[in-house]
């Protein structure tokens, strides 16, 4: 079965999840059947998507772990207490906070409205440009 990028994105957003155990969801998808060469529709389940997402999720987990390993101990103590915050569109993936919680043992929260987090932060920097002038990168 061959499907396009936009369809793939829709599948991930609709039934994608990062951690097994939550309810299994199914979705009807249309694409081209590779054997017949004819457009067909078929059903994918969230378990299949989870399987497909394993590799990228593993690289996320290992990136988090290596960042934590390189964290100075005093900072690490703060992190153990406060945990980590997820932002960006990827944080909307179902159960990604649970996955990271299981893997790192730290408290994990998804930021409120993770998609617009960066631009809201930029906006705040814009409103308080004089006060926050030190945060801009010079190069």
């Amino acid at each position, binding site marked *: 079965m061959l499907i396009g990028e936009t369809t793939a994105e829709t599948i991930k957003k609709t039934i994608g999840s990062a951690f097994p155990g939550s309810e299994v969801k199914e979705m009807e998808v249309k694409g081209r059947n590779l054997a017949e060469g004819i457009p067909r529709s078929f059903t994918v389940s969230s378990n299949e998507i989870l399987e497909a997402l394993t590799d990228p999720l593993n690289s996320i987990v290992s990136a988090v772990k290596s960042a934590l390993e390189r964290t100075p101990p005093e900072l690490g103590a703060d992190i153990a207490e406060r945990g980590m915050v997820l*932002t960006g569109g990827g944080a909307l993936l179902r159960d990604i906070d649970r996955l990271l919680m299981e893997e790192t043992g730290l408290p994990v929260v998804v930021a409120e409205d993770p998609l617009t987090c960066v631009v809201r932060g930029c906006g705040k920097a814009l409103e308080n440009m004089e006060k926050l002038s030190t945060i801009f990168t010079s190069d």
Partner: protein
Amino acid sequence: MFESFKGYFSSDLAIDLGTANTLIYVRGKGIVLNEPSVVSIRQEGGPNGKRVIQEVGLAAKQMLGRTPHNITAIRPMRDGVIADFTVTEQMLKQFIKKVLDSRLFSPSPRIIICVPCGSTQVERRAIRESALGAGASKVYLIEEPMAAAIGADLPISEATGCVLGQRAGGRRQVRRSHCQLYPPQLRHAHRRNHG
């Protein structure tokens, strides 16, 4: 003094130029634009002809995978950096034009724009130049994790640590029960004291 006076009249912008989506915040108005970072380009008159921007944003995204042979729909950003400089500049220009009302004599805006934390100087310069090319009077760059931390209301001016995992949109291709997600970006920020 003059700067702040000028700032009073121009509508300053904050832009999150992401791989998947571009968001624009206008001072005093909030988030005014949230569209996919996709551009469709029409090739005019043969392979050596002019390349014209057909659509940007949502309209272009709907064309992804559905374009006729003389139009290509592309994402000019890859992994948060500019893969196609001219197209990105055009896209920024179009987006900025969309959000700024066309007043006569309105001074060009100051723009804050996000760069990924690990990006190189060359990439940063590319982003800065395309914002300048798109009509900014002054461009400030801010590291994405820092912006995200402010957006998530983390205590950036305190000397305590927190971790921030940021994952921007990647690109996937799915075949039945097989899918690949191109390098997801994950960035980390060690909080520093900026008080």
